[in-house]
């Protein structure tokens, strides 16, 4: 069953069409990654879903049509994390920032405190609670922005290059946390990125180029179109590239994403 549905989306900036008759549907409880090079229309699509840009289309989120009347109700259920966290902060301390959306929705201070404790520990930002979010490093800012989105306990989480500035080790931990949210809390994740390493965690990969879906499918299916991806300027992860070459030499049977398993298969 679809949780998000975009049909016949047409959008343009001045005379330049970004989307022309664009269609996409996202299944409930799935993790979909939409990847594409610069100018593919990823951020525009996020802005359209957040209601920050108006378009002539029929966008349905959680069975509600995205319009001015439903916008507030939809936003309560959807957590957004934008690529530039500075565009998201409204308060002067991380603590206030985490509490802000829930305060505005009328949650009790007790519930807010409980959620802040839980999420700040989960994302390891409990040491930053009294800091000014504008004074943090890029990665820390992105973690705070993600924490703000998770505070709302969203049913859909939309990430626009949200982990771009976070270092590799922490990124892996956060992606695992998000996977846990996806599997156990049934949060539908829609991740927009140009880094395909993050896409490994998703169930479905959509390659977007100049407002058109070029490839759409499961991870192995999309990576079988490696040449197309290279042509549009997307870098294929090392593990994928290596396992595809090993497949040519019949060393492995199918795509292997775990580097350690890949090593053991080579040495078998």
């Amino acid at each position, binding site marked *: 069953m679809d949780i998000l549905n975009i049909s016949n989306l047409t959008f343009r900036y001045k005379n330049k069409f970004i989307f022309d008759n664009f269609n996409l549907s996202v299944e409930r409880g799935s993790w979909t990654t939409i990847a594409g090079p610069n100018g593919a229309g990823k951020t525009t699509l996020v802005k359209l879903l957040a209601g920050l840009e108006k378009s002539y289309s029929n966008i349905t989120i959680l069975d509600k049509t995205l319009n001015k009347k439903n916008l507030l109700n939809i936003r309560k259920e959807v957590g957004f994390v934008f690529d530039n966290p500075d565009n998201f902060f409204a308060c002067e301390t991380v603590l206030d920032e985490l509490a*802000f959306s829930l305060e505005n929705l009328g949650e009790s*201070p007790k519930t807010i405190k409980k959620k802040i404790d839980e999420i700040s520990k989960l994302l390891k930002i409990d040491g930053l609670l009294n800091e000014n979010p504008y004074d943090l490093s890029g990665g820390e800012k992105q973690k705070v922005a993600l924490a703000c989105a998770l505070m709302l306990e969203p049913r859909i989480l939309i990430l626009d290059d949200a982990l771009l500035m976070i270092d590799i080790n922490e990124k892996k931990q956060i992606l695992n946390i998000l996977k846990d949210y996806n599997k156990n809390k049934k949060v539908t994740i829609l991740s927009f990125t140009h880094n395909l390493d993050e896409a490994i965690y998703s169930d479905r990969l959509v390659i977007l180029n100049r407002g058109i879906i070029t490839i759409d499918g499961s991870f192995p299916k999309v990576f079988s179109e490696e040449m197309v991806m290279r042509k549009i300027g997307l870098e294929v992860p090392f593990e994928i590239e290596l396992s595809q070459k090993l497949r040519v030499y019949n060393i492995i049977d199918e795509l292997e994403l775990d580097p350690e398993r890949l090593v053991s298969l080579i040495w078998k």
Partner: protein
Amino acid sequence: MNSKYPFFKYVTGDSKMHLMNSKTKILWFMMTFITILLVKDYLSIAIISLFLISLMLISKINFLTYLSNSICLFVFYLLIFSITFSITFNLNIAIMITLKVFLIIILFLILTFTTSLSEIAWGFECCFSKLKKINIPVSKISLRIAMDLKFISSMFEQSKMIKKSMAYRGISNKNIFKPLFIFSKVIPLSYRLSRKMEKIMRLRFYGNKKRTNYRENKITIFDKSLVVIPFIILYFVIWLGWC
């Protein structure tokens, strides 16, 4: 001015001033503001100054931070002094008005250093919540007041950024038109930033009717006494014939 001296920007802390209830803080602010406007003699100015100095010390923020922030507006005070003197030709009035402006700036600094923007907006909203009954958009106005304060602080931050980017491009510091150039760039940039902030706050559900306050601090004796002190000063000023 470096980052140690944030102009009209919240400084995190746990002083009694920081922990004041938002509503009583705004009441204290408004009462003190009115008192400063009404006083007309140097004795009252001295009493209010003592009152503000004691609050600065209670706020646990370096006294030099207040001083450097208020003194950096030296040109502004000079302008106020010149304008009032050229209108009234009375040195006494010109000095008095300039002193009042100086105290108002200090008052604003105490408020903004110890209160976050969301608390300021919330405090104004609580104080004027009765006006909602006659369809006055209190929430929108409170948010606008908070954002305008943000506008002032962001103006200083933007000017620092423009100065830096000019230095990177090798534009000379000795250029006499530099301040004018920075000023012309800073105003639209800061205005855009504060309007963007307003948009962000709306995106994050600000303006909802059932708002709670996570940091809603209880009204303490300290809060009550801060609201009462300006009243007492006003009583002395008005009823004892000081003005």
